[in-house]
């Protein structure tokens, strides 16, 4: 941007006209996207902020609520439970997915036959429809006669868990399904990062007498920090937004055992038609995601190692 202003001050009228023409051409490239993006994304984003301070059922008069919606949140038990559930989901899903993705990537980073086959296999759940996948999971983990519990019974487990039908196990079931579904995507990012580590670093470590664990600890892990950082940011944001999987697997239940924030936002808006209130919950979600992302970027300097 600074180079542009320099050009403008010294330009002759003719040059300036060609400069303007250049800008017009540039804008003509952006405009088809920008118009739609501004109308259907940016404006609603701004409106959402305003709506959080309003009372509105979508039909009657809209009225100013001030901070009422937010103070109501403090007394809303479902909100408190949803918030806790969301944090539990994030705390389970993020580390499990990252460790599994790194493990798979390490396995596939060796010279192997059929590497593409395995890569595709691990990746496929990521593109499969969540509705279809959630149904299969629910059936595999069917409490009474599902294959998983049949197997557990055959192995001598007396009372196998009731999985998604149980208050205690529903969240664990949902997290397992989520890790299974997402791991392939992050695996590929790790795989690409692993392949970009110069082999000379390992050769140097070998000369210094490093064993396999030391190579992993002192070469691989530090070299992977940019990918780890990218994945942790993306995965955390995605985990806070979890919705489809839960909606189809458990609908937020049993009881409120898997009722996460987005499910609460959805119910408040589209079942109870409390648009203002649901926007205020959305704002809480937004600020939590923002705060965590900012902390992640702040911490980045301490542990991420760019060459």
């Amino acid at each position, binding site marked *: 941007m600074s180079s542009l202003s320099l050009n403008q001050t010294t330009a002759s009228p003719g040059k300036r006209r060609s400069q303007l023409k250049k800008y017009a051409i540039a804008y003509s490239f952006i405009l088809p996207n920008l118009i739609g993006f501004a109308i259907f994304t940016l404006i609603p984003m701004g409106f959402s902020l305003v709506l959080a301070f309003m009372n509105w059922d979508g039909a009657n008069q809209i009225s100013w609520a001030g901070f009422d919606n937010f103070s109501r949140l403090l007394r809303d038990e479902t909100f408190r439970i949803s918030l806790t559930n969301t944090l539990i989901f994030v705390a389970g899903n993020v580390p499990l997915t990252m460790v599994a993705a790194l493990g798979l990537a390490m396995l596939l980073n060796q010279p192997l036959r059929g590497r593409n086959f395995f890569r595709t296999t691990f990746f496929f759940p990521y593109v499969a429809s969540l509705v279809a996948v959630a149904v299969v999971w629910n059936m595999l983990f069917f409490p009474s006669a599902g294959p998983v519990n049949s197997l557990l019974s055959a192995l001598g487990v007396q009372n196998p868990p009731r999985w998604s039908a149980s208050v205690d196990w529903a969240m664990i079931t949902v997290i397992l399904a989520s890790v299974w579904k997402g791991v392939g995507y992050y695996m590929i990012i790790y795989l690409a990062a692993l392949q970009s580590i110069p082999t000379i670093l390992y050769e140097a470590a070998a000369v210094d007498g490093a064993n396999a664990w030391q190579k992993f600890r002192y070469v691989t892990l530090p070299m992977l920090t940019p990918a780890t950082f990218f994945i942790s940011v993306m995965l955390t944001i995605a985990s806070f937004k979890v919705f489809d999987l839960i909606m189809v697997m458990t609908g937020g239940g049993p009881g409120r055992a898997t009722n996460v924030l987005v499910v609460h936002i959805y119910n408040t808006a589209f079942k109870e038609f409390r648009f203002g209130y649901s926007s205020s919950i*959305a704002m809480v979600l937004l600020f939590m995601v923002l705060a965590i992302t900012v902390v992640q970027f702040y911490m980045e300097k301490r542990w991420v190692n760019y060459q």
Partner: protein
Amino acid sequence: MMTYAVLIILAVFMLLPFLWMVSASLKLDQDVFRVPIQWIPSKPVWSNFATIWTRIPFLTFFGNSLKLTVIITLLQLFTSSFAAYAFAKLKFPGRDWLFLAYIGSIAIPWQVYMVPQFIMMRRLDLVDTHLSLILLQAFSAFGVFLLRQFFISIPDEILDAARIDGMSEYGIFFRIMLPLSKPALATLTIFTAVAVWNDFMGPLIYLNSQSLKTIQLGLRMFIQQYGADYALIMAAALVSLIPVVILFVALQRFFVEGIASTGVKG
């Protein structure tokens, strides 16, 4: 050898739900949960795949999903690549600020502004139309970001040489940039097509009429209506996966490269 054993076990574990889905879709309902599991049914019930189309308007849903997927993917490819070219290779006032707004909108959960979007669409009288979903998904910030990252890696010298030869920016875009960007365009194609085909919440919020609903809604409807007929549900779920499998297998090489390049460069 150890590695192969571990990988094969993991691969089986990853594929097991799909294998079970295929197997269950070919059974009689009462055999779905029979123990021990019969992985290859002795008498495959192929008629399950005929029945699903008659129980609910599955064909209509299939067609609707196909229509939305094709239109939205084409629009996204067009508007995103156009904008990405400007962000990557042209200079204009406000470029950096605009780009920041695009990035910011990717980070903000869609759920934060889905309610205002819905209210806006209702004002425009577009609720319960396909146009609403098309308008919401055709202008993707993610698509712009993905393609910009790729376009940046194409050397400026090639473009400058074309400019000296008198080629217009549009000519450069269509005749140089796009042909060089096939992996990135393929990546965006899969990402978008898969996302639209699998989209559940958008149709759930916007579509009420039976004749407009998409395959994911149909699938859930099926589960709710025929909650006990597991073989049929599995057959329907399997059918809903077929287009994604075809697309994925056809373009997966590009896809993997595309993800790898966005991920590592950040």
